[in-house]
Every structure is written in C-alpha cells, then in structure tokens.
C-alpha cells in the first residue's frame, strides 16, 4: 500500500512532464497541459493524505536495488515516517494550490504549457527528494529540483536579468552541492553505503561506532553535507541567489523559492540529524543565526515587494537551521511547515498584487514578462529616493513590484489584503492564534533551553540573534503591509486600474490563509507523532549542569500554557506518558519556554509598533533614520556586498584562471614539445656544423617546423659537388676507424 501510494505520488507528476517532453520532440504539445499537471498534483495530494494513516513509528525503508557493482550495491527506496508524511502533504498541497493559482496568473503566456510541465517536473523531483531513504536518492532529487529551479527562474529567459539569475542560482547551489557530494563520499568510504535507514544503513552503523571516540571526520562530513543545504536553503554565504531568483514568475517564487525547494535544505539537515555532532550542530546553528539576521536587515531597506519576501524567506530558513542546529528538531520542522504555508500565501498574495497592477499596464493578463520593456522614467525618479542604485542583479525594480507605487490597496483587493495580513501576523509571531507564533516560539525556546541546559555562551548568543531577527521580521513585514495596503495610493493611475484577482487566484489564497492557523497544524502538537531521532554523537559539554543522561535532542518545548498539546518535542521512553510540562526532569524547559515566549511577544510587538510609527503614522521618518545611520543603511542597501565580492573576486578570478589555462594550453604545452624539439635541433645543428640563430616562431606547428628545419640543414650538406660527397666518404671512413679504434 505504501509503495503503491508513494509510487502514485511520484509517477503522476512525472507522467505529466513526460507527456510534455515526448510530444515536444514531435514539436507538439498537449492541449491542456495545465489540467493534466494540476490533476496529477491533486492525485498526489490525495495519496499523501491517505498515506498519513500508514505512518508507523520506526518504519523500515522500502528499497529496490538500483545499482549493483558486485561488491557494492546502491539501493533506491522510500522511507516513510511522520516527517516524510507531513512533508509530502506540505509539498503536494502547496504545489496543488500554486498550480491552480497559476492557471489564472499565467494565463495567456506563450509558453503556458511548458510552465505547467516544469511545475510537474519540479513536484516530482521534490517529492522524490522527500521520500528517498538514502543520500544518493536525496542527491538526485536535490539536483533535479535545482534544475527545475533553473528552468523556472529562467522561464522568461528573454529578460537578461532572468537569464543571469537562473545561471546564478544553479551555480551557487552547485557549489554547495559539491560540498555535499564530498560529504557523501566521506560517508560512503566509511560505511560503504549511502542508505540512511535500516540495518546496515549509515545511521545504524554510525550509532554502533559511538564508542570509537574521535569523530572529527564525522563533524567534517556533517558540515560538508550541510554545505548542500547552505546552497539550496540560501544560507549565508551562498544566499545571494535566492533574491535574484525572484526573476521567475511569482507562483514559482511561492512554490519553489519559498515553500518547498529552499526548505529542502532544512529537511536534509533534519534528516542527517542522527549523525550531527556538537561541532557540526554548532556550525549549523551559527550559520542559521547569522543568516536570519543578515537577511532580515537587508529586507528592511528593500522596495521590491518580492525581494522583501525573498529576504524574509532567507531569514526564516536561517531560523529553521538554527532550530535544527540547537537540537530542536521538531521545532525546526514545525517552522518549516508553517512557514511553507504562510510564505506561499505571502508570495501568492504579492503575485495577486502584481497581477492587479499588471492589468492596468495594458499588457493584459498574458504578458507579465513584458515588463522588461517597461518605461524607465519610473526608475529615474526612484533613484533619488534610493540613495544610489541597487547594485548588480535586479537593479531595476519593475514598477508593478515596487512598493513605492502601491498603497491603499486594501479596499481594492480585500481578499488579497485579508489573507496577506493573516500571513503577516503569522510570520511576525503575533501570539497564540497564528501558527507562526508557535513554531517560531518553539525555536526560540529551544535555543534558550539548550543555552540554559548547557550553560553555553554560544547558545545565549544565538538566542540573542534569534530574538533580534524576530523583532526585525515583524518590523519589515508590517512595513510591507503598510506600504502596500494602507495609506494613500502613491501612484493614482496604477491604483485606479488595480482590481481583485480572479477566483482561480483568490481561492488558493483563502485555503492557504486557513492553513496559517495552528488548528490545522495539530499533527505537530502530537508528541507521539513526530519524534526526534537520537543523536548518539552529540554530547553535552562538560560544564553543562544537567544530568548527563538527559537527552538534549529533546530540548523540551512545552506548550503548557494553553494546553494545546503536551509537547512539540517527544520525550524519551520513560517520560512519554507524562508530557514534559511541569516535569522535574525537564525543569530547564519550562522556564526557558516562558522566558522565550514573553521575550518574543515583546520584540514582535516592538517591531510592529515601530513599523506602524514609521510607515503608517509616519511619526518617525525612515529617511531621517537612514541618514543618521548612513553606513549601516548603505551596508544593508548593498546587501553586505556579497554580490560585489563574488562578482568582483570569485568570478573574476575563475574567468581569469580559465583564460590563463587556455593560454597555457595554446602556448606552453604545445611549446614544451617545441622546447624538446629546439634542444634537439640545437644539438643536431652543432653536429651538422650549421648554426642558425633564427628561431622558428610558429606557435603551434613547432615540432614539425623544428624537425623540418633540421631536415633543411641536413640537406644543405648535399651541395651538389661530387668532391664534397667523396670527402664525406673519406671523412666517414676515417671517423668510423677512429671511433672503433678508440672504443
């Protein structure tokens, strides 16, 4: 049953794509590719829901032999635990909604069928990644989603910015992937398998080697695998591709670059949870924390609605990483899920706004990518406000995405407004009734809990970072809402034309809005449903003031206050029945959670308040603040100069190096052969008695020319005078006699 369902889930989208591909060879296309793809997704969604019941604790993977080399075998297979099941639902659900949304949004695009085919391929790859039980399968899905991302970002490839962005996305993630591959090689060399689960799987073997002491290599392997996640989940320092990826159609941004693919990194890290050591965990946590802050601060100063959301995504992904890094496995994944819904909602909402603005541009529904031709005078006056142009990629904000052209839209587009507001409240961590609050709070509590438990400076620092990022998140998200939906319309002409989007677009918004409430996320609150795996290689540091047997992997995140559930995190066997709250054994968690929750509510409130003051009431002037903190502002505005660094240094060096190599190839390598030839020639020339200083300078034909020139010298002895010949005979005879007399 499981196998059948999973196969269905995978095959339906694949079939949708395959039909497109095969017909494409015949230069045709299926008349309703959109229906085909959407139907495939809906079937997959239904199957995913059915699968929920099939989940059992500690499942065995279902594998088939994929590649057998005699001594070594690589299998492919499915592994279905609760996390997989939830991920399946998230992916299929968001994907289905995005499909439906796209039917409205992409309507009339000349490459409309291709768009759906690519979406199908993406869905297949993502689902494949999710259900794989082994690193090789994950890697395959991993690269395939990368490909889809490449294809979809570059969907409107006529735009140079899109063409640049898709290449950048692929290459940047590829850098991370190579790290992941090296990590895989390390694991394979050690364990002779790439399967994660089951007997003989990496986890089982790694657990068995617990006692072998030095696990430095395991830390390195863990960090290397995490590199893949850094690339794909756009963590610092490989985050720069994600904002540029917004060049793709907005539904793509929602599905791939917000909800699912970028979360794959988090998923992978979570999957590798059992082999994370304290070093690798700490690296992950720090990368996550730093990313959360950097991305959030950059988001504050963006004006492009999609870029704001993009940086917000990066920041939230950092959050999830941080959660996993501090051992809050469940919290991290929980945030992944909630984020998938509300971020997809935000993106689709922004898509709806863009779509609305779009219509008035007279391009009609059919031609979003037409904005490459858009009038540039709009930007002209923008630049004054911008304090200099935005560097490198995406330097021109399309007017229909520029928040400075928006304002007061809440009346024009009520559904979009309401749904986006719900999502914003959720992401900002407005307490209790929004799912985002719970998941973010769980992470914060997890960090603080670990800090208190281990008494670790690192973790206190991380908690500070997380809290700071939470505040900023609330600030810039409300900035977005205020600038877009409140106040006076800043561009009256555009405002007049704006309208609410068609049903195919609003329905998915509404569905997603519903999903942003905690009620629908109850699975996460069932302590038995999602259990963090053990981390045998993670040891509490010596100065930790908890009993050594305390399982840090379960850094307790209780929700005792409202009794929604026992715990997000599972307990170890003995404590399962009690739940965590109020349990003495977990005394550290209760307070940690309370403190975290209170603090997070405070910072979120502060953020919203400031935002209100700046962008709604306008009591405070963003411009004056910007002037006051000019250096900081510039830093944020230039996105910490990552792109400048990469373009100016890394790319330039690579290109330079390649030129050098090519030059080397043309001159030196051919030249070495030449050099040998030259030496030979000189010796021979001496022997022949004819010296010629002229050096044959042909670059490539060297050997031939040199040999040729020797030939020329040899033939010069052939003077044509018979007595010379006879002299050579005589000399030859004498020489031969001399040689053999001496010998």
């Amino acid at each position, binding site marked *: 049953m499981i196998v059948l369902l999973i196969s269905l889930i995978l095959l339906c989208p694949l079939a949708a794509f395959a039909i497109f591909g095969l017909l494409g060879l015949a230069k045709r296309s299926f008349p309703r590719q959109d229906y085909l793809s959407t139907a495939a997704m809906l079937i997959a969604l239904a199957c995913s829901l059915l699968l929920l019941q099939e989940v059992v604790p500690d499942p065995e993977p279902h594998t088939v032999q994929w590649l057998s080399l005699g001594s070594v075998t690589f299998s492919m297979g499915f592994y279905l635990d609760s996390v997989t099941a939830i991920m399946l639902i998230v992916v299929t659900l968001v994907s289905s909604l995005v499909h439906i949304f796209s039917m409205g949004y992409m309507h009339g695009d000349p490459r409309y069928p291709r768009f759906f085919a690519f979406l199908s391929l993406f869905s297949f790859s993502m689902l494949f990644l999710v259900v794989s039980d082994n690193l090789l399968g994950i890697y395959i899905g991993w690269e395939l989603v990368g490909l889809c991302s490449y294809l979809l970002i570059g969907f409107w490839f006529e735009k140079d910015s899109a063409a640049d962005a898709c290449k950048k996305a692929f290459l940047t993630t590829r850098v991370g992937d190579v790290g992941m591959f090296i990590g895989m090689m390390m694991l394979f060399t050690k364990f002779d398998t790439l399967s994660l689960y089951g007997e003989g799987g990496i986890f089982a073997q790694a657990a068995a080697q617990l006692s072998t002491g030095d696990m430095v290599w395991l830390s390195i392997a863990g960090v290397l695998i995490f590199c893949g996640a850094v690339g794909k989940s756009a963590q610092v320092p490989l985050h720069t591709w994600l904002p540029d990826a917004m060049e793709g159609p907005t539904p793509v941004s929602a599905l791939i670059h917000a909800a699912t693919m970028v979360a794959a990194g988090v998923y992978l890290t979570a999957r590798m949870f059992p082999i994370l050591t304290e070093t690798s965990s700490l690296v992950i946590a720090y990368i996550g924390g730093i990313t959360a802050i950097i991305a959030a601060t950059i988001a504050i100063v963006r004006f492009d609605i999609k870029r704001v959301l993009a940086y917000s995504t990066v920041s939230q992904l950092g959050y999830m990483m941080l959660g996993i890094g501090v051992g809050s496995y469940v919290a991290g994944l929980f945030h992944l899920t909630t984020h998938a819904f509300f971020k997809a909602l935000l993106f689709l909402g922004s898509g709806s706004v863009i779509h609305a603005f779009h219509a008035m541009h007279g391009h009609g529904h059919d031609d979003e990518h037409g904005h490459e031709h858009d009038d540039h005078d709009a930007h002209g006056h923008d630049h004054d406000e911008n304090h200099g142009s935005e560097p490198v990629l995406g330097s021109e904000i399309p007017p229909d995405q520029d928040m400075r052209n928006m304002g007061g839209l809440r009346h024009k587009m009520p559904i979009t407004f309401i749904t986006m507001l719900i999502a914003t409240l959720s992401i900002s961590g407005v307490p209790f009734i929004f799912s985002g609050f719970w998941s973010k709070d769980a992470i914060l509590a997890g960090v603080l809990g670990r800090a208190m438990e281990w008494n670790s400076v690192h973790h206190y620092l991380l908690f500070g970072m997380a809290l700071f990022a939470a505040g900023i998140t609330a600030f810039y998200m409300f900035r977005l809402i205020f600038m877009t939906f409140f106040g006076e319309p800043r561009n009256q002409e555009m405002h007049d034309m704006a309208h609410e989007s068609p049903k195919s677009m609003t329905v998915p918004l509404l569905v997603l809005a519903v999903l942003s409430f905690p009620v629908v996320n109850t699975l996460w609150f069932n302590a038995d449903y999602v259990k963090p795996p053990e981390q045998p290689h993670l040891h509490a540091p010596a100065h930790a003031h908890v009993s050594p047997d305390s399982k840090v992997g379960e850094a307790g995140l209780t929700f005792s206050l409202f009794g929604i559930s026992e715990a997000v995190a599972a307990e170890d066997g003995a404590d399962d029945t009690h739940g965590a709250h109020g349990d003495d054994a977990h005394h550290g968690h209760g307070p940690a959670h309370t403190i975290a929750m209170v603090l997070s509510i405070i910072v979120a409130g502060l953020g919203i308040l400031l935002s209100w003051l700046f962008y709604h009431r306008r009591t405070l002037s963003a411009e004056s603040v910007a002037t006051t903190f000019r250096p900081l502002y510039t830093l944020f505005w230039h996105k910490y100069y990552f792109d400048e660094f990469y373009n100016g240094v890394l790319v330039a060096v690579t290109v330079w190096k390649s030129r050098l190599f090519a030059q080397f190839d043309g001159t030196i390598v051919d030249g070495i052969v030449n050099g040998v030839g030259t030496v030979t020639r000189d010796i021979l020339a001496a022997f022949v008695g004819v010296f010629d200083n002229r050096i044959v300078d042909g670059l490539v034909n060297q050997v031939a020319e040199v040999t040729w020139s020797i030939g020329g010298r040899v033939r010069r002895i052939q003077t044509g005078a018979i007595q010379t*010949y006879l002299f*050579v005979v005589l000399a030859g005879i004498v020489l031969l006699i001399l040689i053999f007399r001496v010998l």
Partner: protein
Amino acid sequence: MQPLSNIESLLYFTPELLLVVSAIVVILVDLGVKNRESATVAYLSLAGIGCVFAAVLLTHGQLGDRTSISLFLGMIRLDAFSTFFKVLLLLATTATILFSIRSEELDAQLKGEYYALLLAITLGMFLMASSTNLLMIFISLETVSLTSYILAGFLTHNPRSSEAAFKYITYGAVASGTMLFGLSFLFGMTGTGDLGQISTRLTELLAAGEIYPLAVLIAIIFVLAGVGYKIASVPFHMWSPDVYEGAPIPITAFLSVASKSAGFALFIRFFYSGFSSSEVMQSVDWTLMLAIVSALTMTVGNLAALPQQNVKRLLAYSSIAHGGYLLMGGVLLTSEGIGAILFYLVVYLFMNLGAFYVVVLIANEEGSEMIEGYRGLASRAPLVAGAMAIFLFSLTGIPPFAGFFGKWLLFAAVLEQGYYWLAFVGLLNSVVSLYYYARIVKAMYLEAADEETASTSTPFSTGTFALLSVFVIPTILIGFINIFYTFSNISVSVLPMQ
C-alpha cells in the same frame, strides 16, 4: 660438399645463361626492328625474363634435398637465399621494363640497348646475390655498377641525367676502388678468396694473434664503403639523391629497389659468412658500428626528405631511410634479423615500385615530378591517388599495410637483441617519415588542382590500373599471408652462420 667444376656448374647456371642470351637476342632483334616506337624489344625482354624466372625455379628444384651447391669451383653458390633474391630481382626487373614501356621520358632511339642493359644488370645482380668469392664479388659489383652508370645517364640531351651518371660513376668508382683495396687486405691476410675460408682463417689468425685487429677493422670498413655505397647508407649515401633525381624514373625505381636488394644480399653474405665468428666480433664489434650507421642512415634520410619538393628526390631520401631500417636487421647476428630484412625487401619492392610507378604516371601526365603536380589528384584520378596513398602509408609503416608488418619484424628482431635505443630511433623516424609522406597525400587529397591541369588531364588506361593493382594488392595483403614469412625464414636458414 665439394664445389662443382666449371662444366658441371653450367647446368645450375641456366638462369644466368638465359639472361645473357636474352640480352643478345634483344640487341639483335632491335637491329631489325623498323618501327622505333614499337615496344617489341620490351616484350621480348619480358619473355626472356619469363624464361629466366622458370629457369630459376627449375634450378632451385634441382637442389633437391641439398641446402646448397657451390658452383664454378666455389665462385658462386646456389641456395635458397640466392633463389630468393633472384626472384625478387626478376620482379623488380619486370616492373622496371613495364614502367619503361609506359614512361614517356625514355628516348625511343635507344630502346634496344636499354633493355639489353637492364638484362645485363640483372645478371650482375644475380651474381651479387650468389657470389662467395672475393673475385666474383668484385666482378659482379662492377658489372652492376658499370651498367647502372650507363642507365642513369641514359637520357641523352638531358643534363640532369648526364650529371647523375657523372656523379654516380665518380662516386661508384672511388667506393668500389676503396672496397677493392679492403678486399686486397682480406686476401692478403687470409691468403684465400673464398668467404668461408676467409672466415675460418681470420678466426684462426686472430685467435693466434698473428694479425692486428686494426687491419681487420680497416678491411671491414673499406668493404663497408663498397657495400654501403650500394645500399646507400650514411656516410656513403650522398650519391643517391642526385642520381635518383637525375636518372630516368624507371631506372630510379630499379636502383632504389633492385640495386639495394642486391647490395643487401652481398652485405649479408659478406658479413655473415665472413665476419661473424666470435673472434672477429671480439676484435671488431662491427654490429655496433652498423647500429650507429643504421640509426644515422634512417635519421638523415628522413630529415633530409622533409623539405623536398621533388617527389622523386623525396623518394630517394625515403629510400635511404629505408636502407637504414633494413640495416637494423643486419645489426643482429640472428636469423630473425636477416629474415626480417628479406621480408622487408619483398614488401619494400612492392610499395616502393608502386610509388615510383605513380611518379612515372604523373610525370607523363604533368611533365613534372614536383609535389604541386599531385594537387587534386584524388579528384582527377581517385584510383591512382588511392594507390599512391596506400604505398605511402605502407612506406610509413601503418597497419594494415605490408610496410607495417615489415617494420614490425625488424623492430621485433632488434628489440629481441636488446637494442632498445635503436628501435626507439627507428620508431621516431617512422613518425617523422609520416610527415613527408603525408605531404604528398595532402597534396593529392586536401588541395585543389589548378584549373588548367584539372581540365587537361587525360584518363589513365585500364592497363595502368591493372599494373597498379599488381603493386597495390601485395602491399595490402603480404602481411596477412603466412607463406612470405616462411619463405624468408627458409632462405635465411641456409646461410652458414657462426
């Protein structure tokens, strides 16, 4: 076995006698032929050659189970070795006669003498291949030389031909004089003219310390001068490019194949029957000497060939280089080495004669021997161009052509004796040689012909293609046929070696 007396020998001397008769008949008939354009004498010579060929085989059959018979009181010897060369030489002569019929550069007035001289030179070469006595060696060598001087200068009113003859005779006279001087010392030291006895006596005398090794060395080097001149090895090669270029093309072909083969026959007899005892080797390591000479010969030949524009001259240098390859086999005191030489000579006969035949054809058509004349040949005459390409690649030594198998035998023999450096030099030379052979191929295939030549070209006759195929087919197939290996091995096995 006792050498046969003069009268008894005549029975086994039929081929040579037939050659003499043919030559005389050709001259006589020529006197009576009215039409100077007709090829009657040529066909008559061919008929004569045919008879000689039959006689050679029959005479060889008379050997029965004897490995060899000494004739004329030990002057010459009849054995498989000599029969091998006789067959080879007859093939070369036949080809040369056929080329001559087709060549337009030969003067019609002198055809009678021309063919008679060809038959005479063949006789001389027969004797070279079978001599076992200093006197006979000298006489046969001079017969061949004198005749070839005349043949090289056969084109009256052609300064190049005269110059070739002049250089040839000057060079040849000095070389053979030098050789004769060396022979006189050999005779003096051993008191005999018979090669077998010379070997025995030298061994005894050296063992007894009665003669200076230096004297033996000088004698050997002087002999080498004469033999080396015949096979055009460095440093006795310098006549050959000039003579080859100046001589009529059929004669060049003949010299490059037959003369070289006969030279090698003499060389092998001389050195293997005369100087191969261990005592001689100890005092004079002539194999090392030959190895050096061989390496130099192929290198000089190949390098000098590189810049040549005249195909005939290019092939002359190539011929020198091939002499170098062949000498590699002579460096070794093994039957494999000699067998390899013999085999290579067969291969060389076909591919080199084939190449020269194409030169004849192009010279007829273009009136030029320059590489430019070969431009676009592939489109004008694809079959001729294809044949030429096959000959050239075979000369380079690229499988599956016979040249490769020949080289392979030589290199295998050399490597077996541990002369790695020599094999290496030889192989590098093969690579170099590709370059100049490929220049001709390039001209034929990769370059377009001038408009003028393309339009004026005349189609080649069926006879031409038939004759070409006579060379092409063996060039492709010899390597794959066992009998040739066997034949050359049997020929070697009869040589008295110490």
